[in-house]
């Protein structure tokens, strides 16, 4: 008799994780009001049909991952189901929130629970594994993930989920949210912009002048080690002292707290990845390429712009990517010194013990960091000079 089982370890582990968490942990959390203690509601205790559908999906995924069945079926199940699972889970949670609102009034809150997040994680693991597997499963995953994200965004925007606690927090602060988004983007991107303006020349200089190299990178490395809250903190009295000594600075809008110390600290943190990678990028240029350019009669600045910089640009962009992702995360901390951004929601939420307000700050911060990461990775692909690909 041929063997019946052919365990595919990754999707199997992930779907057991999804199934187990849905059985044991709360899928949504019910609160009598925004700040009351939560009561976990498991998936099968939610509305009439959503729970069993999700359970069935996990069981199908687990069975597919362990049985010896034709590869094409496996590809279709593992490629399509996880992408469909995510918006379905959201819909189930949103439906439960709506029923609760009808039953217990508008003060009651329904938040996403542990089982929801674990399921999301498990589905992501299956998709990542499918992406690596390649072939048909990769294409189907790409299709279902794109569709899943589109449906998720639609559910969020359409107002169908508006009874979920996190969206209630959003609706209460719609204008504030846009403002903090803008503040967050402006602060992190201008810090990285300043770091590029300073770090590019610094990196090139470090490449050309060996004497400067050790000292410059020692200072930047040491500054990078200093915790963000400490650097923000030290800058506050420093800037306050400067503005009281030179009132001109105060008139220019520079204050001890707020944007000025945040921008300085974030620029300092972004400087190391940019300068280090500029140095590494220029060091990676084959001296023969420079020689060839010189032989063609290029001047020093022509060599820099047309030979060295294009060859170094992917590595430099990678430094900018690291700096940008880091700056977006650190901007959230800068809210503590009054610089605005999504950190405002995070720390307000922590202060009020309001989970969903924390999420309203943390999730968008993660999303823009991931988006910046993806964007720069795309640019790196494009920036690779054609001759070197």
């Amino acid at each position, binding site marked *: 008799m041929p063997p019946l089982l052919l365990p595919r370890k990754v999707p199997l582990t992930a779907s057991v994780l999804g199934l187990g968490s849905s059985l044991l942990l709360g899928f949504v959390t019910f609160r009598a009001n925004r700040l009351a203690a939560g009561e976990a509601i498991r998936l099968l205790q939610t509305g009439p049909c959503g729970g069993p559908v999700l359970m069935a999906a996990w069981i199908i995924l687990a069975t597919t991952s362990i049985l010896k069945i034709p590869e094409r079926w496996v590809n279709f199940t593992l490629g399509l189901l996880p992408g469909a699972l995510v918006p379905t889970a959201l819909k189930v949670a949103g439906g439960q929130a709506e029923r609760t609102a009808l039953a217990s009034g508008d003060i009651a809150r329904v938040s996403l629970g542990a089982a929801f997040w674990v399921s999301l994680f498990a589905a992501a693991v299956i998709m990542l594994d499918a992406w*690596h597997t390649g072939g048909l499963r990769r294409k189907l995953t790409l299709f279902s993930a794109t569709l899943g994200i589109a449906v998720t965004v639609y559910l969020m925007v359409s107002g169908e989920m508006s009874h979920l606690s996190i969206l209630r927090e959003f609706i209460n602060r719609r204008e504030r949210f846009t403002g903090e988004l803008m503040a967050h983007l402006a602060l992190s991107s201008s810090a990285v912009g300043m770091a590029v303006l300073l770090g590019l020349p610094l990196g090139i200089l470090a490449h050309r002048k060996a004497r400067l190299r050790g000292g410059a990178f020692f200072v930047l490395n040491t500054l990078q080690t200093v915790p963000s809250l400490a650097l923000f903190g*030290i800058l506050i009295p420093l800037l306050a002292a400067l503005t009281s000594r030179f009132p001109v600075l105060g008139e220019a809008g520079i204050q001890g707290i707020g944007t000025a110390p945040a921008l300085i600290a974030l620029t300092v943190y972004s400087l190391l990845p940019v300068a280090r990678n500029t140095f590494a990028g220029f060091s990676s240029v084959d001296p023969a390429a420079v020689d060839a350019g010189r032989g063609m009669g290029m001047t020093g600045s022509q060599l820099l712009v047309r030979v060295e910089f294009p060859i170094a640009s992917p590595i430099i962009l990678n430094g900018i990517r690291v700096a940008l992702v880091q700056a977006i*995360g650190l901007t959230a901390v800068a809210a503590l010194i009054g610089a605005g951004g999504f950190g405002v929601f995070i720390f307000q939420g922590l202060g009020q013990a309001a989970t969903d307000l924390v999420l309203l700050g943390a999730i968008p911060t993660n999303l823009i960091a991931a988006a910046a990461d993806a964007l720069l990775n795309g640019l790196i692909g494009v920036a690779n000079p054609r001759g070197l690909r």
Partner: protein
Amino acid sequence: MTDRNRRTLIPLAALAGLFVLLTAWMDPWRMVLSTVFPTLDKVVYPLAPFRRLVAEHILLVGSSSILASTAGLCIGIAVTRQWGREFLPAVNALASMGQTFPPVAVLALAVPAVGFGFKPTVIALFLYGLLPVLRNTIAGLQTLDPAVLEAASGMGMNPLQILTLVEIPLALPVIMAGVRISTVINIGTATLGATIGAGGLGKPIIAGLIGENPAYIIEGAVLVGLFAILVDGVLGIVSRDRADG
């Protein structure tokens, strides 16, 4: 010990001395800060002696970093073995995605899961500290020369011997670099733990920000900055020593 290590040892020892002095002895703080801020009533953080804050900080970072390094090493070893290799691509992808997570977000998300205080901070520090160690363990173990491993098995070593006597010693510099990154990040994130009631050197900084007392801010910031530079330097020496040994 390498030349470079010998050269960094003296400034590092001086820094350690300064750190101990500033932790144990309040008078220099009082003298300097009351001259700089003559208008402040109180210049030294009153709620806890610095040695207690430093001890809390060490406990937070120490426990989470030891846990994170152990777990990162174990997972990294597991996914590079024959039986765990199926997990390697997914773990790799998760680890690099996880590092785009801002540390403060991880900290904030641990609160709804576990509540306020010491425990969620250690959990968040553990989760975030895991990634650099994991990534470097995988990188270190995967870039080993296959010829070396073949030679080891040709000598009659069993897989466990190859792992403990060949692979880990050769990959140790890269692994230690991951431990260093992870620990330094954790010192910074532990400072933010003060916002969720975990104690540590972030406490005077937060208290100073709320009470508009720049002296408290400077005390916490200087101590935690020194602590981070010190730990980074020591781990740098340890990892470079391993690289030669």
